[in-house]
């Protein structure tokens, strides 16, 4: 097991190296000049050129690349071209809102989606199934920002139950955190519930066709027990997988949600950095999110062993 984990972590290195290379190349091929944005709209070409020079943007790309890699190996993601802040500090500052909200929405999604998917599988082909699947597919079919706006309009602007925007850390009180986080989390949850409920249903339907389900019935076990004890646990691995790959979707979703709800997370940090061509920040962010993605998938692979004793590494 430990050996497997070490091996998996080592296997991450080439992937991350390729990510780093792709990211670097894509960014430097992208038109845009951070010097121009720093200098402002009314700056003259000369002013921008001198700024470019002093920022090191005139170095050949490969020099910049190896400088960056050199920094990376020291755990240093570089310095934001715009604010002069270290990227490590920026990320450390901005990652918690995103993680906390993402986590809240995963917990909410799983709590909603698994029972829904189970219900659909149980009522397979009948009315309950159709209703659940219609809801899930619908959740999948509406853009996140629309969901966000509707939630704001209903729960914040009209009913005034919840704040419109902003973020409070759990340290500022769990109640405040939830009051602010619940709408953004629900926005993210819409698509995530859809994804997870569908997978739960599909996976459970597969499992319900297995011989051991028939065995359980033949033993005289109650239907509900068969469904939950024999069905759900065997269906867990694909569900876990989709939770993991869905995490990537979630990281994309936060970009939108953080804009709509004004949450100072890494999604907005990234979009702002892209818009301003703040290369070190974008590079750091993509590396970070890729790293999180790879890590989450590793954790999920390890979690498989909890659900399925046949899987041993």
């Amino acid at each position, binding site marked *: 097991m430990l050996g497997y984990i070490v091996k998996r972590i080592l296997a991450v290195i080439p992937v991350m190296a390729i990510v780093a290379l792709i990211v670097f190349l894509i960014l430097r091929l992208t038109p845009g000049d951070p010097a121009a944005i720093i200098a402002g709209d009314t700056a003259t070409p000369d002013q921008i050129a001198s700024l470019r020079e002093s920022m090191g943007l005139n170095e050949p790309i490969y020099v910049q690349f190896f400088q960056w890699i050199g920094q990376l190996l020291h755990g240093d993601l570089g310095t934001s071209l715009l604010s002069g802040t270290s990227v490590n500090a920026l990320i450390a500052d901005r990652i918690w809102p995103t993680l906390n909200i993402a986590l809240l929405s995963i917990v909410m999604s799983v709590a909603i989606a698994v029972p829904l998917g189970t219900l659909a599988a149980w009522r397979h082909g009948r009315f309950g199934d159709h209703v659940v699947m219609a809801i899930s597919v619908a959740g999948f079919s509406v853009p996140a920002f629309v969901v966000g706006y509707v939630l704001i309009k209903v729960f914040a602007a009209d009913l005034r139950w919840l704040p419109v925007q902003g973020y409070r850390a759990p340290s500022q009180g769990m109640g405040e955190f939830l009051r602010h986080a619940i709408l953004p989390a629900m926005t993210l949850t819409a698509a995530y519930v859809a994804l997870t409920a569908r997978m739960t249903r599909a996976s459970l339907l597969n499992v319900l066709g*297995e011989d051991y389900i028939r065995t359980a019935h033949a033993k*005289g076990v109650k239907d509900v027990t068969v469904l939950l004890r024999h069905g759900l646990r065997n269906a867990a691995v694909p569900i876990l997988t989709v939770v993991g790959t869905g995490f990537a979707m979630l990281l994309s979703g936060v970009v939108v949600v953080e804009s709509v709800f004004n949450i100072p997370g890494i999604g907005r940090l990234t979009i702002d950095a892209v818009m301003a061509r703040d290369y070190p920040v974008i590079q750091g962010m993509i590396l970070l999110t890729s790293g999180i993605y790879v890590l989450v998938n590793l954790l999920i692979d390890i979690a498989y062993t909890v659900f399925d004793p046949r899987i041993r590494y």
Partner: protein
Amino acid sequence: MATRFKTQDFDPADEVIAIDRLCVELGTAEGGRRVLDEVSLTIRLGETACLVGESGSGKSLTSLAVMGLLPANAIRVTSGSIRLGDTDLLTRSAREIRAMRGSRMSMIFQEPMTALNPVMRVGHQIAEVLEAHGIGSTSERRRRVLDIMAQVHLPDVERVYRSYPHQLSGGQRQRIMIAMALILEPALLIADEPTTALDVTTQQQILGLISELQRVHGTAVLFITHDMGVVSEIADTVHVMRQGRIVESAPAERLFRTPQHDYTKALLDAVPSLHPRQPRPQETRPPVLDVESLGKTYESGGFLKKHVAKRAAEDVTFQLRPGRTLGIVGESGSGKSTVARCVMRLIDPTDGTIRLGDADITRLSPGQLRSRRAKIQIVFQDPYRSLNPRRKIVSSLIEGPINFGLPRNQAIERARTLLETVGLPADALDCYPHQFSGGQRQRIAIARAVAMEPDVIVADEAVSALDVSVQDQVLHLLEDLQRDLGIAILFITHDLRVAAQICDDVIVMQHGKVVEHGTAGDVLVSPRHAYTRALIEAAPGRGWDFAAGREIAREETNA
């Protein structure tokens, strides 16, 4: 050793289950296809009733109908009754039926690997029967589970209790299933092909166990099987099913000695004899396939992991001459299929040499090999997977010849001729595989191999998935082709009966090694190796000549 049928008279015993004119139809609406047609049978206390028949005859449907496990939205019972003791099952609510499952009637299935929940400890799975029926405290249940596990002769019950199914052997898993079925001492045990997926030696043990427990508990057993050998070993009463009907019911001995119905006779006729056929004259032409010291080792692990080398085949040597059939027999995992696949170069051998005709093909690159492929062809076990379901029969048949430069129209002509040779109409060319039965598909697969005009055909369990009657026909087809075309056949099988009927020479493999090699007569009649003897001993109904309806003469068996 003479065959002894069970002859106990059950007439005075209480009826445990009585099925009366049961009809079952497909679909939920009126007028669906009738899959069970007035099935009636009765089993009494302590009686073993065997339900035999070929695929699709309705054996399993009957058992599922009794258990109340027919898929509700696809199949329904239209008339008839099933009485368990004095309860009419068809009038009971789903809840009441559930309460009876596991306690008054229980069932074991064919494939113990898939029938057990892979993520639950087997002890808990047995204990769940007790839990579902609200019996005992946790510790009480555990005690009873360990007790029944000991009764089914599981070793080290404490450890097995905590094991997951994948950590047990096939035989152990089936014992778990049996323990699960019998822990509440049900009046009726339904065993649906419980030994079909097991090796022959394991099968013998499981059959023995079922009989033993039946004696102890006085259970009525409904035993479903397609294997006449098994029937002859365990049945008190035999019911022969065909196309949803019971065509003949009789006490075992009477059925085997004096079958009444034509279908029963045909079934019995098709059972190959364990006694080898007459040896054919020796062949002296040089071998077409010459395998020497063949070995295949799978290596796994490596970086940060323990290095494991698994020897799937080791030091296998044989020669195959034109027009001859060499059988490789053994149980699962013996390495017989590894040898077949190495010879085909579908996998690369790690040791030894393979000579095909005068060429050493052991180390040829895929490109060099391609030109020699025509000389050696293969027929696989599963007729449903060996033909590309998306391509017409003609495409499958002409693919090889066209690869070797035959013009398309000539290839089609050859395909048409071949189809007739294997006994299919020529218009089958434009059909798709799913339009054919398993036996027909296997004929097509053989035609595809023969179309290449090979010197050697490797038949890898080529008849194992077929019903006995079909199996018989396919074996004859192979024999005819061999006679007409002089093809050499390497015949891989686990079934000694089949090997006895088609092979000139036999290799017995165990754990990747050859333990015995000789003519079919030598190996099967007077085996020298203990393992070969054990295999023969374990073959069910080995003392009975099914086709003739009599014991195999004593001198013949021991000659």
